[in-house]
């Protein structure tokens, strides 16, 4: 039941800026995901919120109360670490009870709380075990349990799934979403995995080089990326880019690139050199449209059952298209034409890489 507010928070180390000043308000019960490539400042941001790291400037508030320089223990937060950081010399029960013991909660209450949490996470049979006797997935659940027993205002999670194998990661992802729904807690979650961000976050903060690129719901980031980096980070396979130039021609906008010409409709004030961005799932093999064409040569075919991923060379550039498996896939070396479907096509300024327009293919 808590809101979090960052006001002009930044972290500067001797020779570089880890996090540039930013403002951010996290609503009560939100599942906020900080995502970005390694070294983007997401973990530093989380650690400033936890109190393990002091910001170089700015203020942090939880529930309107300033906690910028408050000790971690007095912030009423709980954290799940990437490598779980369980106490190796304590049993599962002791690990979960430790924070309560330090807060001088009476033994009976500790016992009920730990047992209840253990039941929720299916840990009852493991309470007497030591962390070294548990599998990675079990350790991860203990780390979660240790956070839950505290009933903190905010849960902080630092890449909690990255040490799990792929199958377990997907399963735990679902469990975490359910847990969030059940606890109705405010969660701040750090990951470098855009799929985790997309599936779990109610809102995503995408960072790069210490600077926030975009804040929004997963679908906002997917549909309306503010720049080329966001566009290329979200989605799997990521958005594809072709370089070229645009110019107005009657009521239409013409994109001209190497082996590629597209007749587009929509609002666009600028002209000149741009990047054109299309998501692989919005490309289809076709030759019907006379006014638009992307000509390429197939280099690799990846058939993953439900769909086929086609890698193409278009002039000197690479392009990936995701087509339904029902379509007869082309063969390696084939010359093919592809066209975007009705989904928006993103236009980025070549110099600033900022989004300048969202256009549609003209019939």
């Amino acid at each position, binding site marked *: 039941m808590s809101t979090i507010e960052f006001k002009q928070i930044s972290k500067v180390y001797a020779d570089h800026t880890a996090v540039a000043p930013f403002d951010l308000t996290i609503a009560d019960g939100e599942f906020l995901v900080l995502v970005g490539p390694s070294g983007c400042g997401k973990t530093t941001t989380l650690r400033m919120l936890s109190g393990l790291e002091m910001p170089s400037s700015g203020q942090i508030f939880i529930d309107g109360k300033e906690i910028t320089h408050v000790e*971690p*223990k007095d912030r009423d937060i709980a*954290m799940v670490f990437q490598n779980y950081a369980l*106490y*190796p*010399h304590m049993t599962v029960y002791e690990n979960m009870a*430790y924070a309560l013991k330090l*807060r001088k909660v009476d033994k009976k209450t500790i016992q009920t709380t730990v047992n209840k949490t253990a039941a929720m996470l299916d840990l009852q049979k493991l309470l007497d075990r030591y962390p*070294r006797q548990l599998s990675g997935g079990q350790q991860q659940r203990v780390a979660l349990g240790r956070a839950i027993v*505290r009933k903190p205002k905010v849960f902080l999670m630092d890449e909690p799934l990255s040490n799990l194998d792929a199958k377990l990661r997907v399963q735990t992802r679902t469990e975490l979403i359910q847990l969030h729904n059940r606890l109705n807690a405010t969660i701040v979650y750090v990951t470098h995995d855009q799929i985790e961000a997309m599936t779990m976050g109610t809102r995503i903060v995408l960072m790069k080089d210490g600077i926030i690129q975009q804040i929004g719901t997963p679908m906002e980031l997917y549909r309306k990326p503010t720049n080329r980096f966001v566009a290329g980070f979200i989605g799997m396979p990521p958005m594809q880019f072709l370089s070229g130039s645009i110019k107005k021609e009657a009521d239409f906008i013409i994109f001209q690139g190497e082996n590629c010409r597209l007749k587009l409709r929509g609002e666009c004030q600028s002209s000149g050199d741009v990047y054109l961005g299309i998501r692989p799932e919005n490309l289809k093999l076709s030759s019907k449209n006379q006014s638009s064409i992307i000509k390429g040569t197939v280099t690799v075919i990846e058939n993953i059952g439900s769909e086929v991923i086609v890698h193409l060379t278009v002039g000197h550039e690479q392009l990936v298209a995701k087509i339904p498996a029902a379509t007869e896939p082309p063969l390696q070396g084939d010359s093919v034409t592809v066209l975007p479907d009705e989904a928006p096509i993103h236009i980025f300024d070549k110099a600033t890489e900022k989004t300048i327009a969202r256009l549609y293919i003209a019939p």
Partner: protein
Amino acid sequence: MIAQTKNAFGDSKQALLFLLPSLLLFAVFTFYPLFASIKLSLYNTDLMGQASTFAGFQHYVDMFSSPQFFQSLLVTLLFTLYTVIPGILLALFLACTVNRQLKGIAIFRTIFAFPLSIAVAGASMIFMMMFNPSSGICNYFLQLFHLQAVFWLSDPKWALISIAIINIWRSVGFNTIVLLSGLQTIPEQIYESARIDGAVSWRQFIDITLPLLSPTLFFVFIVSVINSLQTFGEINILTQGGPVDATNVIVYSIYREAFFNTNFSYASAESIILFFMILLLTLLEFRFLEKRVFYK
């Protein structure tokens, strides 16, 4: 199956070959003297230290009925107490202090290794000068604080403590380095987790550092006890067991019995007792380490 057995046999033969040099050294310099001592302790000896007539357990009986032996035992125990506990506490304090990411900390870590490289004779001479009642620096400082001068090495009340100080100084570097390496195996995130859980510094020390350091602490404890049980150089150089037997630890008593009183069999009996004391400690250590060394 046959091939496997043959292979295993071949392997163990090869292993034995590699072990041979050390086994040989052990046999000549450890096992043989050990059995020779046991034998000597059961015989009467001549002036040259050769076994002459069989005495059975007579020397052990003599030893356990001698008040001097018990005095030696008491002094040894006190000496162990004076050196081991303060020595480890000091080393633990230093290790915790040095276990930080501060600039120039490497210099301090190197300094800790210095006492290790100074021979016992050298260290004894340094401390003899420092302990000098009239010109030594120790009494100089006492005087600064208007305290009475102490006869460090010639006062029976102080002699054992003075020797203990030298012993602590000599071993604190080693202990600190070992404890420091133990501290560095404790992941930083466990402390961070404890900080968030609500543990203040001293709680972290009690709940995290001490238990996770316990295997290392126990190792240092055993090594320190054995080390202090075997202290000889400082005593031989500075006090020769005196004044009035105040520093006559068992090792020194063995030396005196054997080489001054030419009572080799009695000295052997004493050394066998010392051997069993140390053996017991070593076994204890292995037991403990087996149980607790596999955190992770």
